[in-house]
């Protein structure tokens, strides 16, 4: 990154808009900001850090706004860095503004800070703070910033720097962090693969158990199937036996049916005979009780019929007799035909039959009287006779039926012949026994079928599991391959890291030593700067001893020497770094002796591609200015233009070379 311009707007000491341009050209890569104390040197430095990395947790945002501006009602502040990054124009603006509207009484909590980054005028990740910070960290990581933007008066701390943050920063600067990350990531991935493989192996053990279960279950299924077949055979044999018995019984059954029919017939006959006897008794009773009247009625009816027949015949009177005798004497019959002997015989017969005498009339009249007398008894006689006749009819009817039944019975008896009912019963019993056996076999088969079904289902499940586990078996091999590969990668990166560290360490040592030996005032004492595996500084003395600078150690170099060592180390790191960032130093010459100031001033232009440093006129005297002047492109002079307690720093003079 090359910083083209930095614009402050009411940021801390800077009142209003204060813009610094930092052009560079071949041979002139240094920009100097001159300011006395309390004018804005540190504000410039902190403004850059604020712009890039935001405010620190304990920073009060309101305090970052120029107090005079606040008093004039402006509660807004910003720092913008315009730069070139990998050939593209970028701008990074971090502003401070009030949340919500204006208030009468504002405090630090009422302010917020906003970061806006544009790349070729296009905002980057407008709504994603994390992504914006990632972008800035890709330029110069916040952890490594202290090696690019640093306070010259405090750099002696670097010589005794220790701890993970320090190590992290060095790793980032040297491009080791990504290799370390790769190792960590591969370790994590390898661990996951290992876990996967272990799971697979665990499943594989289960697989063996399941295989055993499967074998046992298969034996069970075979046994169940054998039993099933046995039961099936038993059932089939039972059914065959039943069929055979039924075939035998069929004949017996048909005869049996006839026997039953015979028995039924016999029973029916018996019942009908009993009924017939009852009717017979009734008839006899009726006859005994009403025989006379019945007989009388019968006689009456016969006589009455005879009487009625007579009565119907017209009586032949004497006159008629005489006429008929006269007719007989004549040639013609009364019918008009000629009187033949046949005609004559008929007429004479008629006369003989129908000629009524006086005695006949008397008898007829007596008979008539007798009939009239008997007629009053006639209904009773008819009734008795009818009852009797009804009984007779019933007797006749039932006798006929009984006779018919007896005929059928006789026929059945002949058909049944030598039927052996016991043999039939035995067959029936055999069938029942066979049926019972079949039922038992069916029950056993049903139970066996259930077991067989369960066993087959279980076997199927095991097969499914086995298939899965079989897959797992393959999977474990696959996991193992992935694990092996990840571990080889991990080893590769570890080996690479070891060699990279050594290479980087050597590079940093060489470059730091080169700088150190150039700027130290005591090159006879030191042979160079060494770095141990934890990136801690060691001084290699001319006698070959390596001396580790530790806080508070009596043999430590002087403060000035320590600063020189630190500066050399920073320079060495910078030159070995993957980052390309400007070097911004606040007061690089502070607290140094003249010797060191001269040496450092001489070295400053070689620190990096772009050097910006803030210094007071007292520290960069004409002597040193002359040293650096050939490398300077721009100079800025800041001053407080206000007359109040709080500064209104601004650029009062600018020099461009």
């Amino acid at each position, binding site marked *: 990154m090359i910083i083209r311009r930095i614009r402050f707007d009411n940021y801390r000491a800077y009142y209003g808009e204060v813009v610094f341009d930092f052009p560079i050209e071949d041979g002139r890569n240094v920009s100097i900001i001159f300011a006395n104390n309390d004018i804005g040197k540190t504000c410039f430095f902190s403004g850059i850090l604020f712009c890039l990395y935001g405010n620190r947790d304990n920073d009060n945002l309101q305090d970052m706004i120029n107090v005079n501006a606040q008093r004039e009602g402006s509660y807004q502040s910003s720092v913008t860095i315009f730069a070139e990054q990998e050939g593209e124009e970028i701008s990074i603006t971090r502003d401070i503004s009030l949340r919500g509207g204006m208030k009468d009484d504002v405090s630090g909590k009422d302010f917020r800070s906003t970061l806006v980054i544009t790349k070729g005028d296009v905002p980057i990740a407008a709504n994603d703070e*994390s992504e914006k*910070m*990632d972008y800035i*960290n*890709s330029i110069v*990581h916040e952890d490594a910033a202290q090696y690019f933007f640093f306070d010259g008066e405090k750099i002696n701390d670097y010589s005794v720097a220790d701890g993970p943050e320090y190590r992290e920063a060095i790793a*980032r600067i040297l*491009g080791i*962090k*990504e*290799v370390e*990350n*790769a190792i960590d*990531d*591969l370790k*994590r*991935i390898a661990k996951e693969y290992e876990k996967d493989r272990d799971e697979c192996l665990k499943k594989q053990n289960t697989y063996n158990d399941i295989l055993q279960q499967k074998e046992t279950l298969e034996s069970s299924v075979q046994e169940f199937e054998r039993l099933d077949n046995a039961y099936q055979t038993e059932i089939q044999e039972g059914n065959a036996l039943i069929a055979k018995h039924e075939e035998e019984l069929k004949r017996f059954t048909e005869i049996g049916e006839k026997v039953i029919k015979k028995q039924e017939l016999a029973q029916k006959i018996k019942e009908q005979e009993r009924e017939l006897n009852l009717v017979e008794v009734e008839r006899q009773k009726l006859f005994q009780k009403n025989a006379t009247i019945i007989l009388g009625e019968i006689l009456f009816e016969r006589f009455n019929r005879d009487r009625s027949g007579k009565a119907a015949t017209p009586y032949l009177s004497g006159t008629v007799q005489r006429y008929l005798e006269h007719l007989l004497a004549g040639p013609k019959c009364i019918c008009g035909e000629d009187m033949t002997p046949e005609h004559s015989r008929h007429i004479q017969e008629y006369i003989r039959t129908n000629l009524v005498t006086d005695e006949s009339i008397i008898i007829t009249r007596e008979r008539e009287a007798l009939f009239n007398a008997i007629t009053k008894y006639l209904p009773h006689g008819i009734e008795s006779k009818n009852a009797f006749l009804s009984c007779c009819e019933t007797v006749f009817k039932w006798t006929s039926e009984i006779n018919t039944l007896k005929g059928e019975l006789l026929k059945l008896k002949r058909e049944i012949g030598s039927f052996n009912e016991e043999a039939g019963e035995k067959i029936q019993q055999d069938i029942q026994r066979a049926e019972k056996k079949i039922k038992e076999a069916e029950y056993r088969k049903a139970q066996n079928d259930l077991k067989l079904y369960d066993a087959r289902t279980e076997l199927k499940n095991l097969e499914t599991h086995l298939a899965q586990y079989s897959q797992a078996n393959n999977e474990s091999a*696959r996991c193992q*391959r*992935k694990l*092996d*590969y*990840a571990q*080889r*990668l991990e*080893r*590769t*990166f570890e*080996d*690479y890291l070891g*060699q*990279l560290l050594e*290479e980087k360490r050597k590079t940093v040592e060489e470059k730091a030593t080169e700088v150190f030996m150039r700027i130290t005032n005591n090159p006879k004492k030191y042979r160079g700067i060494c770095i141990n595996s934890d990136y801690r500084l060691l001084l290699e003395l001319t006698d070959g001893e390596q001396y580790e600078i530790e806080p508070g150690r009596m043999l430590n170099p002087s403060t000035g020497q320590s600063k020189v060592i630190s500066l050399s180390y920073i320079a060495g790191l910078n030159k070995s770094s993957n980052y390309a960032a400007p070097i911004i130093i606040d007061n690089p010459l502070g607290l140094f002796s003249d010797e060191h100031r001269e040496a450092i001033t001489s070295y400053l232009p070689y620190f990096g591609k772009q050097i910006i440093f803030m210094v007071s006129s007292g520290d960069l005297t004409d002597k040193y200015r002359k040293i650096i002047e050939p490398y300077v492109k721009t100079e800025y002079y800041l001053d407080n233009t206000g007359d109040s307690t709080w500064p209104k720093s601004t650029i009062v003079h600018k020099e461009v070379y």
Partner: protein
Amino acid sequence: MMEDLLNQTSIQNKIDPNVVSQILDIERKNVYKKRRNIFGDLRKLIEDNAEAEVADNDHP
């Protein structure tokens, strides 16, 4: 030089140097990120190449 070193180390560990380079590229692109969602890519690289090795061994 460092690239040569990486290739050499890869070969020593029987790893395709391209895979190592790809992993390092992924790591470099993400080294400054707070949220590094790279495990999927790394796993894919490993899995593809682990299987490719098997295929190569089966059909040399």
